């Protein structure tokens, strides 16, 4: 260590070592930086233009896809709206049909008809006339006694043993009808009509108009045995 020449040689060797180590380090770093796959900075202009073209084409394709998917979405949305509207219409129709067929209770303005028959001379046919008159005057739902009157309700039997749709009824009869109250009142009391028939039999027919009336009797719908929808 005391020899100045040796010290100088050692210092020079250390310096050279440091420099070469730096060189090795720099080479490794540079090679590593250059081999990174996403390093666009080292690419030539032509390569960059090619990559740019590819990216543009890809962006165009993706934009096209977006437009297609948006169109599909619009179609599906509108068809969904259409089917929802159809469902709404169908359910309204079903509700109207249920009222007409008597499968659900109904409420609305109408009349309460009371018929007395002290001498029991009114036959099923006479009582059917009352219902027919109400129907003709636009009654939409009718309850005779405790029976909901519908398309296939039959009035059978002679005076004193009248059956409505199979259920025996006895006077005094009470008929509820929902519809135009004034019209039905007029129709029942028309000269020579059912009112006159009842009075001729010794009874009395009274009509009371109501602005709100509830028909609670319902009937179950028999499944059709012979007739089936023809599937137009």
């Amino acid at each position, binding site marked *: 260590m005391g020899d100045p020449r040796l010290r100088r*040689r050692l210092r*020079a*060797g250390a*310096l*050279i*070592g*440091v*420099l*070469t*180590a*730096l*060189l*090795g*380090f*720099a*080479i*490794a*770093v*540079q090679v*590593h*930086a250059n081999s990174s796959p996403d390093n666009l*900075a080292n690419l030539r202009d032509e390569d960059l233009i090619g990559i740019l073209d590819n990216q543009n084409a890809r962006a165009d394709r993706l934009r096209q896809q977006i437009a297609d998917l948006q169109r599909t979405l619009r179609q599906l949305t509108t068809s969904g709206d259409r089917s929802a509207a159809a469902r709404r219409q169908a359910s309204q129709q079903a509700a109207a049909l249920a009222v007409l067929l008597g499968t659900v209770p109904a409420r609305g303005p109408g009349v309460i008809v009371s018929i007395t028959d002290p001498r029991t001379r009114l036959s099923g046919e006479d009582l059917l006339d009352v219902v027919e008159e109400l129907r003709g005057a636009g009654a939409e739902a009718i309850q005779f006694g405790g029976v909901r009157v519908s398309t296939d309700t039959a009035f059978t039997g002679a005076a004193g043993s009248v059956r409505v749709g199979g259920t025996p009824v006895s006077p005094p009869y009470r008929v509820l009808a929902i519809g135009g109250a004034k019209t039905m009142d007029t129709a029942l009391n028309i000269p020579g009509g059912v009112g006159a028939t009842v009075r001729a039999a010794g009874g009395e027919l009274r009509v009371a108009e109501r602005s709100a009336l509830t028909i609670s009797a319902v009937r179950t719908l028999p499944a059709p045995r012979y007739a089936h929808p023809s599937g137009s």
Partner: protein
Amino acid sequence: MIPALALLAGLVIGLVLRPTVPSWLEPYLPIAVVAALDAVFGGIRARLDGVFDAKVFVVSFVSNVVVAALIVFLGDKLGVGGQLSTAVVVVLGIRIFGNAAAIRRKLFRA
């Protein structure tokens, strides 16, 4: 012997640490590496010729790196960085080839 080991050690450190090059150094590092390689080849040739001098090697190494980086820096400022980089690499490459040829002649006598 020491320089070869140091070079290897530097390579290993660089491979293990995997540092990212700071962006301001990015244009200069490749040129600096080529310039340093030129100095190293010159040193090897001088050693084989028996005229190696540590001081000369250190000065040539540092000045080579600094001048090469300066040229590239100047070229960047003048807007001809790419071309000047190419020029520096070509010149240094020719010198490296010349030194390598001299080393080859010394080693293999051919």
